[in-house]
């Protein structure tokens, strides 16, 4: 199910503003890839371009290629809606649908797309997804309560359950733990390590310990100055990045001597 992502010469624009320039990277299947870097350097922008979510913002566009297992995401005949069905996303702030119960939130991807499914299959899907997100034992007795009544960490795991319920091939996570306490963060990190067996995971994080703990490969983004486009400085196995980085800028950033 997991797929490999090849990005070549990717430039990302907001209107005429070049936000990210010349990204070349290969992301391995069944791995966790962490993207680190200072704020405003284009990590999230790059992540959102991997499932064509950045197109939601008016004026945003890309040049270059993103290929997932041989399929060009930005091909002329590719529907962004299909791309997003294959590549799920979890956002920085937990965003369960406030009008839906926990159960409905998990099956939202199925229900909103009006896919027909038997009640028993749907129950199975809910249990499987919530177990996959380590939330089943906490909520199994109150599946009909609103999703917004959960705690922040539970809400974020509910969003992960919602994302994996549509069985994507790749899971993108945009700072999934930045609004959570250390215990919830740990729960989600454990979850990522489990999910790695089935999905290709790309995570943006500001927490370098987190990148070091969970990821197999790490990319460091930086920008030359204010108003300059961000670019990928270094992309290497996580061990190498954190012990013996190739670039001086990476070492400065990781050791906190940045800026």
């Amino acid at each position, binding site marked *: 199910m997991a797929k490999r992502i090849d990005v070549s010469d990717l430039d990302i624009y907001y209107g005429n503003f070049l936000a990210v320039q010349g990204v070349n990277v290969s992301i391995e299947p069944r791995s966790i890839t962490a993207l680190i870097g200072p704020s405003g350097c284009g990590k999230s922008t790059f992540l959102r371009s991997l499932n064509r979510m950045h197109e*939601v913002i008016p004026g945003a566009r890309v040049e270059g290629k993103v290929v997932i297992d041989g399929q060009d995401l930005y091909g002329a005949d590719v529907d962004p809606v299909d791309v997003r069905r294959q590549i799920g*996303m979890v956002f920085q702030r937990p965003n369960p649908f406030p009008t839906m119960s926990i159960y409905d939130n998990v099956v939202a991807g199925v229900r909103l797309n009006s896919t027909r499914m038997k009640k028993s299959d749907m129950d199975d899907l809910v249990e499987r997804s919530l177990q996959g997100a380590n939330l089943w034992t906490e909520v199994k007795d109150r599946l009909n309560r609103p999703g917004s009544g959960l705690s922040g960490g539970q809400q974020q795991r509910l969003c992960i359950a919602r994302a994996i319920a549509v069985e994507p091939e790749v899971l993108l996570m945009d700072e999934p733990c930045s609004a959570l306490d250390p215990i919830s963060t740990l729960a989600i990190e454990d979850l990522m390590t489990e999910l790695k067996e089935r999905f290709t995971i790309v995570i943006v994080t500001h927490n370098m310990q987190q990148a070091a703990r969970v990821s197999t490969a790490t990319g460091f983004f930086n920008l030359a100055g204010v108003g300059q486009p961000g670019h990928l400085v270094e992309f290497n196995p996580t061990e190498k990045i954190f012990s013996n980085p190739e670039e001086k800028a990476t070492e400065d950033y990781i050791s906190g001597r940045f800026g």
Partner: protein
Amino acid sequence: MSTSLASQDTGQDTGSVRVTRHLPRFAALGLFVAGVVIGALLTLPSGFSIALTVVYGVVLGTLAVHLVSRSVEGRRKATDRLVTTVVTSAFAIAMVPLVSLIYTVLDNGLGRLDSTFFNSSMLGVIGEGGGAYHAILGTVIITALTALISVPVGMLTAIYLVEYGSGRLRRAITFLVDVMTGIPSIVAGLFAYALFAIFFGTGIRLGIMGAVALSVLMIPVVVRSAEEVLKLVPNELREASYALGVPKWRTVLKVVIPTSIAGLGTGVTLAVARVIGETAPLLVTVGIVTGTNLNPFDGRMATLPVFSYYQLTQPGFPPEFGIDRAWTAALVLIILVMALNVVARLISRLFAPKTGR
């Protein structure tokens, strides 16, 4: 709390914390009332008048509270009391017309609020008796038709503006909606009359014409309120839906609208309340009739505001009975509008997203 702190401070004599004195709890109110009474006495030599008493009383009362507070409590506290007094007086003055209006309508309208009023039309009635059965049903039918026209048009316009529109077209629509909000209601009535006169000749009067005229007034209100409510739906919810591979139109239909349904319902109900009492456009498009006509596509219909207007201006002989009916029609109209406001509150409470805590 602060008084006990102050007394401790005096004991310690640190000098860094200023000792504050307070007016007793109801002193401000008492001073204000005293000011009002003095104001009333001042107006007595020139003969008692309510308006003068209110003006003198409010000014003197405010001054009294401010000056006493300033001499006892200091400048900051006095300014606080001054602003509090001014704001409260302004609110009280604003309430005067509302209370007076409701009192007058109740006083004059309750007399004829009987079963005859709701059961009979004005067919063959010259003096006593008669009712607004035909007018109440006419108002309900025409308002329902208006909502039927305005809600889809207004909602879809708002959805276009918030979810799809961009650039020049969007700005043009917003501007035109703003202009429409300011159209005088008689102009809307004349527009509907002119429109139907093209097809059916001059002198035409139909219930549906009234609905069209009222729609011109109601659509911009619906667009405005729906637009504001849709804007409140967090973008994160839309993105969450897109990220699940849900197309945009389904996102709007199944995520954005359900999330904002409470606000949309409230907006529509308040827009209905806004047009239900319109008189001028119905005067030129629907006219008035003494019998019951429930078919909006066939001839004149009676409506409550127009009924009230004609009962007052052409009460027949003897005039008291017609004037009484006019007051009662006004009372029924006010009750309808209040009921709609209650419905709006119920809608927003029933459909609001549940937090489950």
